[in-house]
């Protein structure tokens, strides 16, 4: 698993992808930051992290679209699957490689809270909570992206699937407002965004952490299933 993480992580930085992504991300966030500064809201930093979360939809899509799809296209899938490693290790390797790139990008964004800390007196705990939520939601999106890339060898299709599904799980909470009673609760419960907003408000709940992690785990397990199923396929 370590070998796969190392290889994939390096591959991002050997190609322009990682740099272009980080550059694009910082540019977008810089623009947001500038806008937010002008608004003069009190919890300005946590509002900012919310917009970081919604920008992730594009970033994660580009980041994950090549993971398994590219291996299938290169034929390196054969190498991975005939090596003495379990499929779970392969998928986890792919996932953590993306996750590490994501962490590097997250580290780059720390410049914004740093500016705020230097210039003013923000609630540092709140910023830490927001970032925790942000990293967790990143993990969920990445697992979804890895899952989508296991479905096809075409990176474009993988990216569209990722984009649409992240959009759905991001916004499913809004559906809740159309219903009442059980459905309302159900939609709110599966909404990643409502949990994320809890973190932003400074509510760090163990159930929320477990919820986010299981969300990611479910997609990783599904990815393993997809690969296994293909090997057993009869058609």
């Amino acid at each position, binding site marked *: 698993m370590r070998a796969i993480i190392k290889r994939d992580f390096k591959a991002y930085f*050997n190609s322009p992808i990682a740099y272009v992504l980080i550059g694009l991300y910082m540019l977008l966030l810089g623009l947001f930051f500038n806008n937010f500064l002008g608004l003069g809201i009190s919890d300005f930093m946590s509002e900012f992290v919310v917009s970081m979360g919604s920008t992730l939809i594009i970033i994660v899509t580009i980041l994950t679209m090549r993971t398994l799809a590219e291996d299938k296209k290169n034929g390196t899938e054969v190498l991975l699957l005939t090596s*003495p490693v379990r499929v779970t290790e392969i998928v986890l390797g792919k996932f953590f490689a993306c996750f590490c790139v994501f962490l590097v990008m997250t580290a780059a964004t720390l410049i914004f809270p740093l500016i705020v800390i230097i210039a003013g007196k923000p609630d540092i705990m709140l910023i830490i909570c927001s970032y925790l939520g942000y990293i967790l939601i990143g993990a969920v999106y990445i697992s979804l992206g890895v899952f989508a890339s296991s479905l096809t060898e075409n990176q474009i299709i993988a990216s569209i699937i990722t984009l649409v599904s992240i959009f759905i799980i991001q916004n499913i909470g809004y559906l809740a407002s159309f219903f009442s009673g059980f459905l309302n609760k159900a939609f709110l419960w599966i909404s990643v965004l409502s949990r994320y907003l809890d973190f932003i408000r400074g509510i760090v709940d163990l159930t929320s952490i477990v919820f986010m992690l299981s969300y990611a785990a479910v997609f990783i397990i599904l990815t393993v299933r997809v690969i296994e199923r293909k090997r057993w396929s009869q058609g």
Partner: protein
Amino acid sequence: MIEIQNLTKEYGRIKAIDNISFNVEKGEILGFLGPNGAGKTTTMNIITGFISSTSGVVKIMGIDILEDPVEVKRHIGYLPEQPPLYPDMTVNEYLDFCAALKKIPLKKWKSQKKDIMELVKVTHVSHRLIKNLSKGYKQRVGFAQALVGSPEVLILDEPTVGLDPKQIMEIRNLIKALGKKHTVILSSHILPEVSAVCDRVVIINRGRIAAIDTPENLSKSLTDFSRFTVTVEGPENKVKNVISNIYGVKYLKTSAKIKDNEYSYIVEADKNIDVRKPMFYQLAQQGLPILELKSLNLSLEEVFLQLTTNEEKEAV
């Protein structure tokens, strides 16, 4: 070393391979021969654990591939038809990655790496990106990948495809050399290759085994001097009359007119009787000189064609 029992793989209603069984002994080079789409790659993919079988058993070194896939894969080096390379890595990085993936201890790998690179002659390109290498070098790097960790079993799917004649010779010699230490299964649709390299040949067609034997036996079993062509100078009728009266001749046909008064004939005789001598004397007596006599010796190529086309006729 490798045991394969009643292996079947179905894709819907199509049987890609149908009830295949064979064994490979330690240190043997087994050739897998068949037309395109015969099931060679499917079989190899199952042996290496890349895909699963519908039914049947594959055992490598006595271990069932379904029971302990990770352990089995430790003993197999696989070179698929398309070498599984990462274009954006250098040869060095790629081989290091393969060693890490196969969990080769770092010390062991360090001493082994040089040998492998020299064996397949990629040392001088080790710092180049794989995407910039020629097809032949890519194939060699793929080969090096299969050798990482010096696995007991090597599975090579069309290892010489796309190489130039000199490279083909090199790879063949390499496989022969490797066959001394490793157990090798290689597939090919190039027949001279199989007869030059392999100890035994499995001919596979439409997912079924058409024949298993040594290359020599395979061509021997279907060749003897019971079928030959003979070119004789003299009037066609007279020659035919002489030959057909020889004891043992079962079939005679004019195959071509070469010149005026010079024809070649196809003769088939009883397998136990050598009709060549009496034919020579009798034709000489009649003043009909034999200009050429040639056995219709079946090369492995023709054996292969015969076996695979017979099967097709049966199927129809």
